């Protein structure tokens, strides 16, 4: 089994949760989200972020508004919808459950 594959699988699930959590606090541009992820040591390339944001938006968890920028084209400013908020809370609970489970399993060894 390819370990890189497995690692990638793990991250994929977590990424959504992280994005939702970030946006829970304030609205943000994609690059802001990226910076915050990087600050928390979760490194993703930008190319990963955009498709994910788009999908979340298409699923109704996010909305955005256009913001004019002096340094280039207008940028999307994302925020959570109500659905997104509840989604985020539910994911957080699920995450805690998983954390406990893994901890217990590893502790047994």
């Amino acid at each position, binding site marked *: 089994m390819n370990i890189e594959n497995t690692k990638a699988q793990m991250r*994929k699930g977590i990424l959504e949760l992280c994005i939702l959590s970030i946006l829970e606090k304030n609205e943000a541009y*994609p690059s802001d989200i990226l910076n915050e992820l990087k600050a928390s040591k979760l490194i993703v*390339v930008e*190319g*990963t972020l955009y*498709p*994910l944001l788009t999908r979340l938006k*298409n699923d109704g968890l996010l909305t955005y508004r256009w913001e004019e920028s002096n340094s*280039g084209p207008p940028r999307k400013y994302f925020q959570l919808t109500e659905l997104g908020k509840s989604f985020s809370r539910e994911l957080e609970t699920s995450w805690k459950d998983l954390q406990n489970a893994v901890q217990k399993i590893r502790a047994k060894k």
Partner: protein
Amino acid sequence: MNKTVTINISGIIFNIDEGAFDKLQGYLHSIKQKFGNTQGGEEILIDIEARIAEIFHEKVTDRKQVIALFDVEEVIAIMGQPEQFEDGDAEANAFNNAKEEQSYYEPERKGPKRFFRDPDSKILGGVSSGIAHYFGVDPVIIRLLFVAVVFFGGSGVIIYLILWAITPEAKTTSEKLQMKGQKVDIDSIRQSVGKEADHLKKKFSHLGEKADQFGRKMDAGKVQGFLGTFLNFIFSIVKLILTFIGKFFGIILIIFGGLFLLSLVASLFGLANVNGLSHIAWNYNSFSIKEVYDFLFLTNYQRIAITIGIGLATGIPILSMLYAGLKILFNIQSPSKGIGAGVTLAWFAGIVLLLVTGLQIGNEFSKEDKVVSEFSLPPSVADTIYITADDSHYPVDAVPYEDNEDFFILKSYEDELYMTSVELDVRENNSDSISISVIQEARGKTYEEAIERAENIEYSYSITDNSIKFNPYFILRRADLYRKQSVKIRVSIPVGKTVYLDKTSGWLIYDITNTTSTRDKYMLGKYWTMTERGLECQHMDMSKEGIRSRKKERRVQPSSKPVTPTLKNTPKTTKQQADTTTTAVITPAEEHEMQPLFPTPFTIIT
């Protein structure tokens, strides 16, 4: 001078070098390929382009009006290669994974197998793995076989070396494929090479990472790098050695566990006389545990209980040994907790059973009682008496005293046992006659039982003039069971009289006190005179006259009719008819030890 291209990204105009343009176009194309067909793919592309535009916009200044190649490269680094996009699109992933799985489950193409040594998985020379590939079994099994053969004869080493010498190593890819039995064609070669390439690539990228980290020591304070790798290497070597030792230990456990188990089973069921576990008598006989049982135990219940008890208490640890050995070697899984608890419980039950039955049996030995019978030689008989033992039942080459064991079964018959727990001691007597007391002891649950057993001991000796021949054994009826029966003889000599301890009396004597603290062994074959201080050794006159005179002394009385009172204790009334022509003075026997429920000591009546 360079040609520039004017492009429009996300509605913003940029001037870009021709070379840079090519690269950018390629990149965007690859992104479009990845996302073009997916849901919302258009939007993703738009977003990405907008971001690229943003980055480019920051780079353009008055000084630098054109996007160059390295700018594009930077953008690509920031945005990431399409392969690096971890997309959360489950459907697309499922599709991709399905394709992967399909190739994974594709059955391996079989071809003719050839026997090679496997250089990729070798401990010594790859012989075992080569064999394993050929037969399609786990290399570990083959290695174990080799080790086993090495132990039982050492030929394994030779075989291994021969195989090593004659078997070629699978070096080329096609050889490796043939070793594993895969068809050698383009596809399988490609697969195989691909695997190797992946492997190498990983190794190199790993190295690259390490070098990276080493270079950027400041990065987040992580100083893993070289030192870490080195330590890891050392640890893995140590781990390998320990694992090896562990496996070896596992083998030892299995071997010994098996041996112990066999001997336990054999001895428990009386199948064999296994030395060590069932051996209770030395030198001349060995008895199986079954015989010990018959002899020792009262009821069937006790016999069964002890058997089960021993079986559980020793069998379970032995089985655990075996199991631990197997687990170490073959890594079989631990059974459920329930089984472990159950087994421990069973072991405990075995111990408890042993304890309880042991206590019960011990109880049978708790009360001790004895029967004493006495006999006196009148003072006129002789000044010296000779003590010998009847050693006719012993093997010819047995040495008295040397081979004397206290608890010892000389002979074993259907319902009789000849036991050698007979001890003789010599003491001072206050009266002026030589007296012999025979004390028969036994044990039982109650005093009545003890006395009865003591009485049932059959012991005899014979007196000829001034020489006494004792039996070095007594006879015990099986029905009485072994309850620590023993016979003690006390020869009491007045001061001035002498006793000669014949060589054969070595079977009898036990720690006879003497003035020179001579050990029993060295007392044999000598004359000992009782003095106020105790027994003193007489240095005998070894001249011809001395010997002759001593010979004469041995036959003081002219009469030749031997006196053979056999002391047999019949319950309560113990009268003895002595057939003798010697004038004997009857002395009332002294009652040395008084116990309640004690038959009156008998006396000789002429």
